């Protein structure tokens, strides 16, 4: 079985929901980065929600790839938010104090609403 498997779907308003499943760590973050690269190659102003509900572990390399992708997308008019953190992963997220630079919500729909132009931020 692969360390991480990544699927995606597009919401009605054009927002991509990317759903990795497995471990997001130093051995697998490159696959998520590649997935983002492929998605972004079609359009620069892409908006992505990353649903982490099927991710059992997020290492610093996983957090870093999410943060750096949000930075890249914001520069080109896109955005990225996350949702579905387990209670344990949320504890680590809260400790890192990155909530202002990587917004989190409970569900993909709520995470989509967090994006600039969607009404809340």
């Amino acid at each position, binding site marked *: 079985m692969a360390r991480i498997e990544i699927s995606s779907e597009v919401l009605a308003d054009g927002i991509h929901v990317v759903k990795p499943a497995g471990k997001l760590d*130093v051995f697998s973050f490159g696959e998520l980065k590649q997935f983002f690269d492929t998605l972004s190659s079609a359009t620069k102003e892409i908006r992505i929600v990353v649903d982490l509900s099927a991710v059992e572990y997020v290492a*610093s*390399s996983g*957090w870093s790839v999410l*943060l750096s992708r949000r930075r890249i997308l*914001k520069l080109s008019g896109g955005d990225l938010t996350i949702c579905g953190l387990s209670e*344990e*992963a949320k504890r680590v997220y809260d*400790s890192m*104090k990155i909530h202002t630079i990587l917004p989190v919500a409970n569900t993909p729909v709520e995470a989509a609403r967090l994006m600039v132009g969607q009404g809340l931020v």
Partner: protein
Amino acid sequence: MTGSVFVILCAGFNSAYVDRLHDRVKHYLIQCGISKTSSYVLETVVDELVCNILEHSHASWVEVEMHPNGEHVKLLLRDNGEEFDPLPAINAKGPESLEEIQGERSLGLYMVGKLAASWHYKRVDKSVNELDFIVPLDDEVKGEKHGAH
């Protein structure tokens, strides 16, 4: 509770070592009655430090020792890799804006500093790196944190 020691004999940096360590640490912490959240935090700290050692220090062995005491877990790591003092990176200020994100691999030691309450480093006999951490259980980390040699 008694402590536990895990030793990794390394022949390169691969996921099998790391996964086996995760499993053994998790199993041990469950046996100690430590909560799922605290266990996840401890696994994260161990994972970040051990991956750093395996990837960069050319160590042929890493030893991880855990001593739970009810309020925290004392974590000791020793390795025979190249001398590396991680304290500046652990004590570093974290990113406050997206502009400060420098790439995909810059958060590990910062994250460890946010999850642990205190930490120390020393080089022993010019051949072994020795790190110790206090990682609080369950409650948020409180008070002033500090790292030292």
